[in-house]
């Protein structure tokens, strides 16, 4: 029975690792910048720390597991930024070199999405242009197009669905 419980716990940790690694990576990249070369190391360190804490029984269920991992992630990011800001005051920051493989993959993905956007109905392309490229607010886009802000959101969401379908084909 102990072996079965141990296996179940191991499986849970694997599931947690698989589920939260991408979330932690996203959060780290959003805070530190996509091209910061330390992102992967920081994300790996965080998720390893999370697994270690779970193994040691430090998660007591007072919050959700997501909040537990969010707190650990936020603290590590704050530590990193604090240390980095002290260093930057005195030493010029070296140029950051993104992982070339990830860059190629991201570029290809961007090309695919760009190609699909070009094939969109102008009604939807227009709203993407104003909302994301020109970075107008929802209300400003609505005013320019003569539609309601709610309609702007609907078109943005529908564009996303259309693009997903087009890319899958």
């Amino acid at each position, binding site marked *: 029975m102990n072996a079965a419980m141990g296996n179940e716990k191991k499986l849970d940790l694997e599931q947690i690792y698989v589920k939260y690694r991408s979330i932690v990576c996203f959060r780290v990249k959003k805070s530190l910048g996509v091209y910061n070369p330390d992102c992967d190391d920081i994300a790996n360190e965080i998720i390893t720390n999370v697994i270690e804490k779970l193994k040691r029984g430090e998660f007591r269920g007072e919050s959700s597991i*997501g*909040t537990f991992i*969010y707190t650990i992630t936020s603290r590590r990011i704050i530590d990193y930024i604090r240390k980095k*800001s002290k260093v930057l005051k005195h030493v010029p920051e070296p140029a950051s070199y993104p992982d070339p493989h990830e860059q190629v993959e*991201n570029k290809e993905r*961007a090309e695919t*999405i760009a190609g699909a956007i070009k094939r969109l109905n102008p009604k939807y392309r227009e709203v993407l242009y104003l909302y994301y490229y020109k970075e107008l607010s929802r209300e400003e886009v609505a005013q320019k197009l*003569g539609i309601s802000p709610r309609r702007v959101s609907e078109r943005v969401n529908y564009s996303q669905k259309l693009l997903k379908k087009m890319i899958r084909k």
Partner: protein
Amino acid sequence: MRNCKFEGNIDEYLMNRLTDDKKNEFEEHYFNCSSCFEKMVERDELITAIKYKGQEIFKDEPATEAVKGETSWGKIMAFLTPKQWATVAVSATLIAVLVFSGLLMLKPPSPQFFINEDAVRGGKITLISPIFEVQTVPSQFEWQRLGENAEYRIYIYDNGDTLWQKTTKDNFIVLPENIKKTLASGEKYSWQVKAFSPEGALISVSSRVQFKINHPE
């Protein structure tokens, strides 16, 4: 139809438009909501593609700057027949080509504006100081430089209201004394920097970073 009430925050979060409190709340939320996280990742991919390839995607975009529903355009078009408009267009093009060719022989070399790769749309401005907690009212705000010729606008906020803003070409700004006097110990403020190209196009927006001025000991 939305599955989650936080779904409306996805765009605002990705475009760095949320206040610090709302940002933190949403960040904690997507650690607990797979639906929002998946939608956010998809949306982020879309925004990244648009920022990276936007010039190419939207180069043939018709005049979307015009406000829809104008009737004056109809009035202008009715002034000439289509055939007459075509003649005007061809003549104007020929004149433009002649004038442009003449100018090319005379005009001096154009000034070169280089924005390096870091300043291409989508680059991130990192705010250096002040962040989190400071012991005294900060005299200077500093951020990471983004490209050679970018211009920066700094905003300081007090609870969502803009307290002060200023434009500079440097990557730091010294706070004027009259503004320093309005910042109080024990209070929290936030600040943000936006970067613009020499042509005035918005090229990057930093996150809003909060700082607290501790009480003197």
